[in-house]
């Protein structure tokens, strides 16, 4: 770490705040975000209804497109960036994502295991007679 870097230490940014740029550039940023979001949304609606692509790939494609669009929203609308003034915001987001992945992945994993190991319902009913 050089002295120069430390002297140029910037204060943090609040989530949602941008570094100071002109109004035109900021509007342009939102327009780019809107354009990308519309493109990704249109693609996922198109893929869901088409039979032009290999059918088993459709769920994966929809999930990938959704994650990409969430990224677009985070960067262009919420202004969560990788800059040094945004470290706290990104770390909080990373922790949130960890919990979300644990909750969703864990539930699906455990419940599919239980489903797999459970006796079929008609056999269960016969045992209770």
């Amino acid at each position, binding site marked *: 770490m050089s002295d120069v870097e430390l002297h140029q230490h910037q204060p943090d940014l609040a989530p949602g705040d941008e570094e100071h740029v002109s109004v035109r550039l900021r*509007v342009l940023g939102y327009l780019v975000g809107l354009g990308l979001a519309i493109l990704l949304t249109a693609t996922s609606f198109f893929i869901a209804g088409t039979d032009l692509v290999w059918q088993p790939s459709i769920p994966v494609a929809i999930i990938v497109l959704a994650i990409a669009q969430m990224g677009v*929203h985070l960067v262009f609308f919420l202004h969560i960036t990788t800059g040094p003034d945004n470290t706290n915001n990104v770390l909080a987001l990373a922790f949130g994502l960890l919990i979300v992945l644990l909750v969703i992945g864990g539930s*699906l994993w455990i419940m599919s295991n239980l489903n797999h190991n459970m006796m079929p319902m008609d056999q269960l009913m016969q045992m209770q007679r």
Partner: protein
Amino acid sequence: MTMAAVHDDPHHLGVLANIAHEGPAPKRIVTGYGFWIFLLSDIVMFSCFFAAYAVLLGQTAGGPSGAQLFNLKSVAVETTCLLLSSFACGMASIAAEERSHLWFQIAMAVTCMFGLAFLAIEFHEFADLVARGAGPSRSAFLTAFFTLVGCHGGHVSAGILWLLTMMAQVFAKGFRADILRRMLCFALFWHALDIIWVAVFSVVYLLGSAA
């Protein structure tokens, strides 16, 4: 640098010490960061509803499945409404920072209009489902569906009330520092709702009608 200076500060900590004396962060950053943490906890709560929906997707108890119920055209219109509303909200944040009363009120009114259009379509869809006998008590799948989508709709309704409050406060009190902090939090909230809606239309509607 002289030898004495090197001895006094061998690891150049003097520079760090200056940074440590900057004092606490400005209130705007503390407020925004705290609200960001709240939003992330809200997203964690939504992830539980998403997990429940994914687990119960096939449990229709002989009732209708997603493919038979969902109308993807109206979902596409809803998505467009919410996306444009989020964009207008961004314009309102810019107007607030530029201290432009006129543009702020116009952008917030547009945000509100698209938000209300979204809610109207969603309400119409729910009423239609209940009228067709596919209410939340029909099957575990529909319970999970109404809980998840209804929870998002409830957030949007609360957001609209907050939006109208912000319009009134800016009108009555002007762009004071505390009002601007509330506006920052509102913009974060509204954009976060749009992110959750991306997950809703992908997982609930598109994947749900494919399954």
